């Protein structure tokens, strides 16, 4: 059937596949741009879904209750000494450091970079990750140097008589 007018323009009764796989260069330009716009919009949807996922996870975490667990006796470790323990579950390794006569701090042992185990260096008075030489302040767990960007999760401690009790965590546990 003969067609009149500009052959590069689609007609109303033309099937979609003819428009999508057109032999005309002008129409091909339209199609490639249209598909790119569709792809970019779907990418935006994916990122929105990611934000929703974070929102749901943070709501679920808000309701999480931490157990109370005795982790050490007050005079069990000397000043500068370290004790390893598991908190809040058996697979979460943490370390307790006595940094002065009456001050104790405890952190998750997993580096916030790639989850290697950090250790306490008494000479540097820092928590050090041996994998990529990330260093954290022993006072508050903040990053001092290296690739990690987030502080070590802090175990909240409470003193009850001669016992040190872990009562919660601040920060997100890795893995």
């Amino acid at each position, binding site marked *: 059937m003969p067609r009149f007018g500009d052959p*590069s*323009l*689609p007609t109303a009764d033309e099937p979609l596949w003819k428009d999508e796989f057109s032999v005309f260069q*002008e129409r091909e*330009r*339209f199609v490639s*741009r*249209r598909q*790119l*716009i*569709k792809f*970019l*919009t779907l*990418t*935006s*949807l994916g*990122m*929105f879904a*990611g*934000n*929703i996922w*974070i*929102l749901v*996870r*943070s*709501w679920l*975490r*808000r309701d999480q209750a931490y157990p109370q667990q005795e982790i050490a006796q007050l005079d069990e470790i000397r000043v500068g000494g370290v004790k390893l323990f598991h908190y809040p579950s058996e697979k979460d390794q943490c370390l307790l450091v006595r940094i002065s006569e009456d001050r104790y701090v405890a952190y998750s042992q997993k580096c*916030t970079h790639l989850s290697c185990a950090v250790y306490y260096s008494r000479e540097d008075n820092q928590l050090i990750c041996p994998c990529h030489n990330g260093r954290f302040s022993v006072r508050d767990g903040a990053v001092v140097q290296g690739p990690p*960007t*987030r*502080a070590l*999760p802090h175990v909240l401690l409470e003193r009850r008589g001669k016992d040190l009790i872990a009562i919660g965590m*601040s*920060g*997100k546990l890795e893995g």
Partner: protein
Amino acid sequence: MRRGITALDGTIALLVLLLIVQVWLLSATLDAYLAGHGDAALPGAVCSGLIFAGATGLYRFAQRINRAR
């Protein structure tokens, strides 16, 4: 036809700008969440939703141009 292609190019440029902001927003929200600050999750999700609504608006605009060809 040429004006339509120019309009689509403008739409793509705007979408790319929106996506750059959205990528930054997602990484910032994720970083805050992993650091234990869940408070950033709600405003992050709302802003990301608004950006997605803007992207959908641009997509519909592109469809209208396509139909008006």
